């Protein structure tokens, strides 16, 4: 299957300032791709290049196998800008109708359904929308024409937690319907529950592309075990993948890398009354990528 988005050596300089350098990336059909990096890393630059708002300094990018310069490609994309600006005296509903009209038409009920799901009031004049409501209007316009590719730049910024959940549900539905999604964020937590793969970009360069499942496999987990009687610390020392062991009477705390198998087998020799395993902290791995990359650069520079 051909990639939905394909870039090769995609580079963008703003004068002498590096926006993005040598990005080679494939986004496969039907996947949710999380595009991660701190602010100013080049996420928005990449997205704007894909939508032909800005033009590459060198390299190339295709969407659905066609050049990004072809305006017909954009009818198949739903786009939420990172800095969404809506202003003027026009009502949000009229603006959505205008956008829908240019993209080839969307039924009124589709817009109403989305507005209801996100709890957005479309009768408000755009200049008066709050930040959160602007973001909702932005999401509606991105999803309403059921595009084959959704490109969402920081989609959850400004949304309250309930609406964020609804948004994530919309993303999952879109994926179930076979659509492809590229969403950027500066925090992993925002995308880790929906993304299949994540790309990490830093200072204009793609530093890693990982499967979320593989990332989870390698994730660091904090585990707490409580026994019916005090346990000897030696029983848990030197187990593969288990570190930072601390025993206090009948309870044990440790950190495991990867599989918990060895720990479980060691604990089974005692009577376990309670077990707490925190969600794998992907953020931690995420940060090690950064520090490794940094160390590598520092090393190369030395």
């Amino acid at each position, binding site marked *: 299957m051909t990639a939905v988005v394909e870039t090769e050596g995609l580079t963008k300089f703003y004068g002498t300032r590096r926006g993005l350098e040598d990005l080679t990336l494939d986004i496969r059909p039907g996947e949710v791709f999380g595009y991660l990096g701190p602010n100013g890393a080049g996420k928005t630059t990449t997205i704007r290049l894909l939508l032909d708002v800005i033009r590459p300094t060198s390299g190339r990018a295709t969407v659905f196998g066609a050049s990004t310069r072809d305006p017909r490609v954009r009818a198949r994309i739903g*786009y939420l800008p990172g800095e969404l600006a809506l202003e003027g005296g026009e009502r949000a509903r009229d603006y959505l109708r205008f956008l829908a009209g240019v993209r080839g038409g969307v039924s009124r009920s589709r817009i109403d359904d989305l507005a209801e799901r996100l709890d957005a009031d479309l009768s408000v004049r755009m200049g008066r929308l709050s930040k959160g409501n602007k973001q909702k209007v932005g999401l509606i316009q991105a999803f309403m024409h059921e595009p084959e590719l959704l490109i969402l730049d920081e989609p959850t910024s400004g949304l309250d937690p309930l609406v964020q959940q609804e948004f994530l549900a919309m993303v999952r539905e879109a994926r179930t319907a076979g659509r492809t999604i590229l969403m950027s964020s500066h925090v992993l937590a925002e995308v880790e529950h929906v993304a299949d793969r994540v790309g990490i970009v830093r200072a204009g360069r793609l530093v890693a592309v990982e499967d979320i499942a593989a990332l989870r496999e390698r994730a660091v987990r904090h585990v707490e075990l409580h026994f019916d009687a005090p346990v000897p610390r030696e029983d848990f020392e030197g187990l593969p993948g288990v570190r930072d062991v601390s025993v206090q009477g009948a309870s044990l705390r440790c950190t495991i890398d990867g599989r918990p198998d060895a720990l479980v087998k060691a604990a089974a020799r005692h009577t376990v009354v309670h077990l707490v395993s925190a969600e794998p902290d992907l953020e931690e791995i995420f940060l090690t990528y950064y520090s490794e990359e940094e160390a590598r650069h520092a090393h190369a520079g030395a």
Partner: protein
Amino acid sequence: MPTLVRKTLGEYRRALVGWTVGLCAFLGMYISIFASMMKDPDTFSKQAIAKYPGALRDLMGGMSDIATGTGYLQAIAYQLLGPLLFTMCAVILGNRALAAPEEAKTLELTLTLPIDRRRLLLERWTALALGLLGVALVTLVVAAGASSAAGMGVPFGRILAAHTGLFLLVLFFGTLTLCVGAAFGRRQIALAVAGVWGVAGYIVETMGRSVDAIAWLRWLTPVHYYLDGRPLYQGWPYGDYLVLLCATAVLLMTALLAFERRDVGV
């Protein structure tokens, strides 16, 4: 009507109504006082006019025949204030076509619609031209109506010729603003270019005609092609108007080429 033209006209609606009302009030009021001024012939006697400094008279287009209907209409409506106000309207709307939405970041979403940039710009320009045409038509009716009511005795054909020139002049400045905005994406730059070219052009055309050193500069100002044919006196200056139209077309082509290769919103 194409969607984007209709949408842009919708955005312009308030401004268009405001400027139309303002221009009509200006034209209606100043033209209608002609009758009362004629009752007191001293106001515009040769002696009274002679009191104005020569340069000021030049700036106002001579004023030698301001006591006649044609002269008064030229001095009041078509010489300085009329074109100045209408040009301001055109420049403001021209900026709202691309530069203002780019600065406000609303242009980004429009650009990601399945419309190529050329069509986007052409439709925005068409809306600008149609809007200005609408203002021109309403003000034409008011100018012609008021001057006939005031008994100026200027034939409608001449007013139509002068008003057409006014429309072509403001269309030029509106297109110029849009063009600079398309090339640089900044309202201030577009405003500065249009303002300087307009004001300097007017001064060169009116006062420069007697200064040999800068007389040749008159050929470079759109105001020259607007004023020089004296349509209110002599009828249609086809050649001059054609120059204005062609210059507008060149600006539009330039805008298309410049916008096509721009990074928007950077």
